[in-house]
């Protein structure tokens, strides 16, 4: 459990020497408790206290990194049960299987199909991030071979448009660590230590750090050894929460600390129930044997069924989901689901502040402005589109707030609008000097005219009235 400020204070030197930048040790302790200060800032804290504090501060869920150097994937280290409590940090990694029974053209086309599962949605690139090679053949050689080929050829194609209209939002849920790299990560799905070792030998130089799946109660020691030798994270697979906790302890004792948990049995309902229990135990009770990211396998069933199951498991609480289908129509909803729940709810979704051309506007077309809150912008955009009057929309940077919010917060004023006009170089886009402004901020007309020397036209209050306005008032 996190320590309270007072508990932390007891571990500090209590000398009020001020070297940490705080006037008292107590003030420093309170900052530490709120994670606004770092322990290193106090030069006098004893070794013993340091250890105690570090243990209390260690994240309840471990972070596990795997994949290629240029496209490393981070999973785990989540801190909350519900997105609205703070945010979810590391987006679920979606992986697709490739069987080691495939060869020749079949194998090539399967890899190609997986590579093509990249999309662009509201301006953000999303896609499958890993290939899970499954040891269906049961023998090491084909497994190693298919792994080698997958490692070489797994290179996603640039995103395809058309699934949703291309839009540019710059609040991407995926941070840079998960941005699209040049190649997919590998997950080696085999319970044979020999097959795992053979494959790892083949792909040593090409695949970076693959994820090894999985160690079971039977092969734990040998698998842990292979994982340790190759420095890769290891999946622990068991049928119950209790067995998983035992297994993860065993693997940890064998020297592998990067563990991913896999609950292998149960109906979807049972899985959701148990995954939720695991999350509660790791986060709320800080039960370390379950404090790891999780992986779920959704194998078999129609693409639709896989989609439904995968989406449920993404929401509750799989760090990695492995599916079989390569149908884009089934994969896109899963990716959308990841995007939705991993978007930071504390930050408004924003569009890039710039001039947007709707239709093919010319130098006599209307020019209007709105703010860069996505919801505001897209509402205005679709209404302008509906008017069929080619227009320019100037988006003013208001830190993602809507028109009235921005106005009352003084983020939308004659200065910010004038700046945006200068940056967007609107004077060169249109010949006229008329600017349409949102009806709700009609009060700023005077100052805006003074600041810009443009004629201000007060537009409608509701953007739904824009088509009428553009057709009748603007003309």
């Amino acid at each position: 459990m996190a320590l309270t400020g007072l508990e932390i204070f007891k571990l500090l030197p209590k000398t009020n020497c001020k070297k940490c930048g705080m006037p008292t040790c107590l003030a420093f302790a309170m900052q530490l408790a709120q994670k606004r200060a770092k322990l290193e800032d106090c030069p006098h804290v004893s070794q013993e206290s340091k250890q105690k504090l570090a243990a209390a501060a260690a994240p309840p869920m471990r972070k596990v990194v795997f994949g290629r150097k240029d496209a490393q994937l981070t999973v785990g280290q989540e801190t909350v049960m519900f997105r609205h409590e703070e945010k979810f940090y590391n987006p679920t990694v979606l992986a697709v299987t490739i069987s080691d029974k495939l060869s020749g053209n079949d194998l090539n086309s399967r890899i190609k199909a997986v590579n093509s599962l990249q999309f662009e949605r509201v301006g953000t690139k999303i896609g499958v991030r890993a290939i899970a090679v499954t040891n269906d053949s049961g023998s090491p050689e084909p497994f190693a071979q298919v792994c080698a080929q997958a490692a070489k050829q797994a290179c996603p194609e640039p995103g395809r448009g058309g699934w949703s209209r291309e839009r540019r939002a710059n609040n991407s849920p995926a941070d840079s660590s998960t941005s699209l790299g040049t190649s997919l990560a590998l997950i080696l799905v085999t319970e044979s230590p020999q097959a795992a070792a053979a494959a790892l030998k083949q792909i040593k130089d090409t695949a970076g750090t693959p994820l090894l799946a999985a160690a079971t109660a039977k092969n734990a020691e040998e698998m842990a050894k292979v994982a340790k030798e190759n420095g890769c994270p290891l999946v622990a697979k068991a049928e119950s929460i209790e067995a998983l906790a035992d297994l993860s302890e065993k693997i940890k004792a064998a020297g592998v600390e990067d563990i991913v948990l896999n609950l292998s049995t149960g109906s979807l309902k049972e899985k959701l129930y148990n995954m939720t229990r695991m999350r509660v135990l790791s986060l709320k009770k800080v039960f370390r044997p379950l404090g790891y990211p999780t992986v779920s396998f959704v194998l078999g069933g129609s693409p639709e069924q896989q989609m439904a199951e995968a989406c449920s498991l993404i929401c509750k609480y799989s760090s990695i989901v492995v599916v079989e289908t390569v149908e884009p129509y089934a994969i896109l909803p899963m990716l959308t689901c990841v995007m939705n729940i991993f978007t930071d709810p504390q930050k408004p979704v924003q569009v890039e502040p710039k001039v947007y051309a709707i239709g093919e506007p010319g130098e006599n077309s209307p020019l209007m402005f709105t703010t860069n809150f996505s919801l505001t912008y897209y509402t205005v955009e679709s209404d302008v589109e509906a008017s069929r009057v080619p227009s320019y929309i100037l988006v003013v940077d208001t830190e993602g707030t809507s028109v009235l919010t921005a106005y009352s917060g003084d983020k939308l004023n004659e200065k910010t609008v004038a700046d945006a006009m200068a940056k967007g170089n609107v004077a060169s886009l249109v010949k006229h000097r008329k600017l349409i402004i949102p009806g709700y901020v009609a009060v700023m007309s005077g100052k805006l005219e003074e600041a810009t020397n443009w004629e201000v036209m007060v537009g409608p209050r509701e953007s739904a009235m824009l088509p009428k306005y553009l057709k009748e008032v603007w003309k």
Partner: protein
Amino acid sequence: MCGAYSWLDCRAAYEITPSGPNQPIAKGSCIEPKIGQWDKINAFVQQVSRGGVQRMSQYSMITDPMTSCGCFECIAAVLPSTGGIMIANREFAEMTPCGMKFSTLAGTVGGGQQTPGFIGHSKHYINSRKFIAAEGGIRRIVWMPTMLKEEIKDNFIKRAQELGLGGEEFLAKIADETTAATEEQVLEFITRAGHPATSMEPMF
């Protein structure tokens, strides 16, 4: 108890919206008479905080202290080396001996957090017999801004007399911003003044 809201407000709010945030709570039976805990209150707190707060003491600022939203008139904070507490009122904007201004303190104790060693409360409540009774009540107060002293003076003196601390005399033993700005100065001041907190058991 925070001073922004009274028992009557609470009751009226409940009568207007019976399913709203103000709810009558049956106390149940007392399980911790010293720090003031009741089984049914704890159960209620646990349930409505979704497990975030497990227990709540009525009379202690060290063990499971009460939480507040942030509207309190005053904040009491421990001053460890003095063995006592300081109280800052909202109007006092300067630095306090604990090393935090009222605004920083408010950020620490508000927002429904349970922060042992700190509570938010009203001015009036300082003179209550229940005010941190588990820790020794007003005997622990070693620092208050002059304006707060002035405001609660009359009742405070009565309460101090009740405890056999001597009325005005005790108030004079409490440091303020004119006599002590840091924890060290408070300690010096109360030691010289012979404040009772100097000879009490440590608070935590």
